[in-house]
């Protein structure tokens, strides 16, 4: 059964991506469908701030799914990626624009800029789950044959079943995000936002449920085999569990038990994916079973060990991140841990405005600055004399470097050249590289802190 394990990891990664990344994409959904103006801006800001610390980690689940899949089932990966190149490329574009929007929002200042960035973010947040959803749908509907771009370029993923799954994926992100954001608002005590997102959760949950039911009808007409596979035996039982979990989630949201609602909504998503996988097993692609698609034994063993070992490091770290994020430690204005403030003496020695001040490059930001702030601790630092007002005066010699470190650095450099560039043996090269790193580190420690020590007059 070794050959199934990577697939189990892939599906687990898919569930986690759908649940964690899904909430992330859904934040963009709600940004798009929020009213313009201040109230809408509040919603958009909330969606952004809640996701800021976690989006990159959420995104990595997709990378995990891809890399484990292509290592464990390379032929299936090549077949899927080449036939479904168009939706895969669309997802890639969406991911580029979303990530860029995250980076840009940090620099956006005016309302107009924010609106633009949020618009890019929202549209791409809809595009990615839709495109990835259609890919799942295309695989489910057996439209991806084995081979290099052997399937149809468009009709493989633009068919009723695939589109249905794409739409469901978008609905699912909206729903998960609303629950997540409602919980986040409840935690930070923002009653208005909590009410807004609670209503959205209930609405999105009902709509998603309706799409899913309507989807069964579509499935029955478009892909009778899949419909039949899903509606008997174990898959049917699991699907019923999913429906129940969905209903329970709605109840929990209604009663404002958001934390529990997050869990049960994850169960609902996981159950759908599990039902699909079990209904399909042992087929991976038409004419290709999981066993046939799996990599050779050694690769599977190494992969499974690597994933398990990685998980041992990964999950505690993820838990730390989410604990900090979910308990509000990252909120703007969260209580700072004191102890940093004990900055003694050594005032910043940059010259008073008169001397060196930059010939104001026109940004309004540069002008006011801290100059206006009447500091309570107005005592000047010891070294911050007017002597440094002009650059040349500041370029006085600094203290001499530590002689021992200097000698170590020189010795490392000579050894490095000898081992790396004169000798030819592999072990000598290894020693040479280590020596050269030793040189760079000791030389850096010799040069920089000597100059930076004290008031930095050496610079």
């Amino acid at each position, binding site marked *: 059964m070794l050959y199934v394990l990577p697939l189990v990891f892939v599906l687990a990664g898919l569930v986690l991506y759908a649940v964690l990344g899904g909430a992330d994409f859904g934040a963009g959904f709600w940004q798009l469908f929020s009213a313009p103006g201040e109230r809408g801006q509040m919603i958009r800001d909330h969606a952004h701030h809640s996701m*800021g*610390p976690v989006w*990159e*980690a959420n*995104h990595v689940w997709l990378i995990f799914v*891809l*890399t484990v899949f292509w290592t464990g089932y*390379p032929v299936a990966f*090549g077949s899927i*990626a080449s036939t479904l190149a*168009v939706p895969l*490329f669309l997802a*890639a574009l969406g991911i580029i624009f979303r*990530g*860029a929007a995250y*980076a840009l929002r940090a620099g956006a200042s005016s309302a107009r800029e924010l609106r633009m960035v949020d618009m890019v973010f929202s549209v791409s947040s809809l595009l990615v789950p839709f495109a990835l959803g259609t890919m799942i749908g295309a695989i489910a509907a057996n439209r991806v044959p*084995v081979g*290099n771009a*052997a399937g149809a*370029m468009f009709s493989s993923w633009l068919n009723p079943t695939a589109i249905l799954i794409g739409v469901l994926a978008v609905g699912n992100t909206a729903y998960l995000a609303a629950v997540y954001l409602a919980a986040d608002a409840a935690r930070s005590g923002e009653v208005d936002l909590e009410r807004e997102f609670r209503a959205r959760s209930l609405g999105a949950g009902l709509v998603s449920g309706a799409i899913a039911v309507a989807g069964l009808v579509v499935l029955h007409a478009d892909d009778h085999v899949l419909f039949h596979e899903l509606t008997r035996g174990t898959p049917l039982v699991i699907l019923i569990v999913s429906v129940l979990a969905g209903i329970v989630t709605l109840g929990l949201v209604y009663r404002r038990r958001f934390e529990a609602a997050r869990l049960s909504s994850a169960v609902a998503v996981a159950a759908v994916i599990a039902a699909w996988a079990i209904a399909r097993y042992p087929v991976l692609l038409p004419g290709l079973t999981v066993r046939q698609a799996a*990599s050779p034994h*050694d690769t599977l063993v190494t992969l499974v060990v*690597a994933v398990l070992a990685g998980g041992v*490091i990964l999950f505690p*770290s*993820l838990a730390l991140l989410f604990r*900090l994020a979910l308990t509000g430690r*990252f909120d703007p204005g969260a209580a700072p*841990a004191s102890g*940093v403030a004990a*900055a003694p003496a*050594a005032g*910043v*020695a940059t010259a008073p405005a008169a001397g*060196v001040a*930059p*010939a104001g490059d026109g940004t309004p*930001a540069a002008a006011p600055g*801290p*100059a206006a702030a*009447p*500091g309570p*601790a107005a005592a000047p630092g010891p070294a911050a004399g007017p002597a440094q007002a002009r650059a040349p005066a*500041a*370029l*006085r010699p600094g203290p001499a470097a530590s002689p021992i470190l200097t000698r170590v650095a020189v010795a490392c450099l000579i050894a*490095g050249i000898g081992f790396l560039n004169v000798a*030819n043996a592999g072990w000598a090269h*290894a020693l040479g*590289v280590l020596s*050269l790193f030793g*040189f760079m580190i000791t030389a850096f420690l010799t*040069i920089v802190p000597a*100059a*930076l*020590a004290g*008031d*930095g007059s*050496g*610079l």
Partner: protein
Amino acid sequence: MSPAVALAPVHQQYLLQARQMQALSFAVHIPLVAFGISFPVMVLFVEWMFMRTGDPMYRTLARRWARVMAALFAVGVITGTILSFEMGLLWPNFTATFGSVFGLGFAIEGFSFFMEAIFIGIYLYGWDRLSPRAHLACGIPIVITGFTGSLTVIAVNAWMNHPGGFRLRGGKVIDVHPLTALFANTYLWHELIHMYIAGYIVTGFLVAAAYAFGRLRGNWGRFERTAIAIPLTIAALAAPVEVLVGDWAARDVATTQPLKLAAIEGVGATTRGASEHLLGWYTDGQVKYGIAIPHLLSLLAFHSWNAKVTGLDTVPPSQQPPVNVVRISFQTMVGIGTMLALLGIFYLVVRVRRRRLPESLWFYRAVVLAGPLSVVALIAGWTVTEVGRQPWVVYRVMPTAAAVTGAKGIPVGYATLVITYILVGGAVVWILRRLARAPLDVPPEIPPQAQPAY
């Protein structure tokens, strides 16, 4: 040997465009990797200096740099994701055939990337919310993953250049040992160290270039001097060391990939005591209009006056890499690298003997140039590695033409990606300018003073 292909081979009319699309994605991503490797180290050093001295200037500097680090990491996340998508979008047959051999490298890299993303999130949002020690500690995994990420990805690249850890039978891969393939490969180490140090050179000179530019415009306070001294010292130390590492790399290439060396140096026919040519143009089996230095190539590549250097004519033309692309890229990298090393040595001499920063404005003008030039050298170096491997995707095992997708529409995808990357590039420039122009956020305990903008 029958060519290895898991999926039936296809004809792709736009192979060259697919390669260019890959090269573009790679060229966009690789400078961000340089930042991922080394910028966390610089930020952490500055934060550590703050903890040691309590000087709030360091705190201000660390926080400003951390914001830049955050923006560049976000962009690096997406450009890196595109590269992983292209494994399937452009080269499905490469992945389908050899995923079981090299895939593990990316799977481990996935975890590395995971840890990086998690701790960068904690680090960036944890200022003032974690204890100073805990905050500094959260930066350390970012530094480690900067190394392990390079290690695993370059292990895959080294495997493509020097494949091992599997056997072929009837075009199918058997007897696969992924750990051997990836990490018992002698070719890995020079590539890894060369790239890792390049990361410090590029980041060091680029950050220094920003402050040197400010220096030319008159922004020159204690803050700016500190902010330039740290990256510049790092780059100045790394640049000469990179020359030494490059020598090692070239000797490894000479023994492992003789044809790549022949393309780098424009050696048409196998020669004993081969000359090294500076500049010039390769045509009809020799370098024309170049400056020849007798015996130097044999001496450099094999440490022997009359060593035999394999020529390109040992294989049919269809198996030779495009010589001038490889050769000009190599000369660009070496030329820029040498100038950067000299600039670094000049800086180090002034710093050590005069115990101050250089005063000459010409020095700062040179640093402003050194930043972008170091990126050019970085991309040129990777061009040597990647184009020099052609026409193979897996050296002497799988031709690039057998790896490419059969999907249509590559030109459309290529054009779309070009436009997208131009937009993203513009966005990055915009955000960096915004961050640079933000007023210095000096903590409230500091005496009120006007702060230069950069």
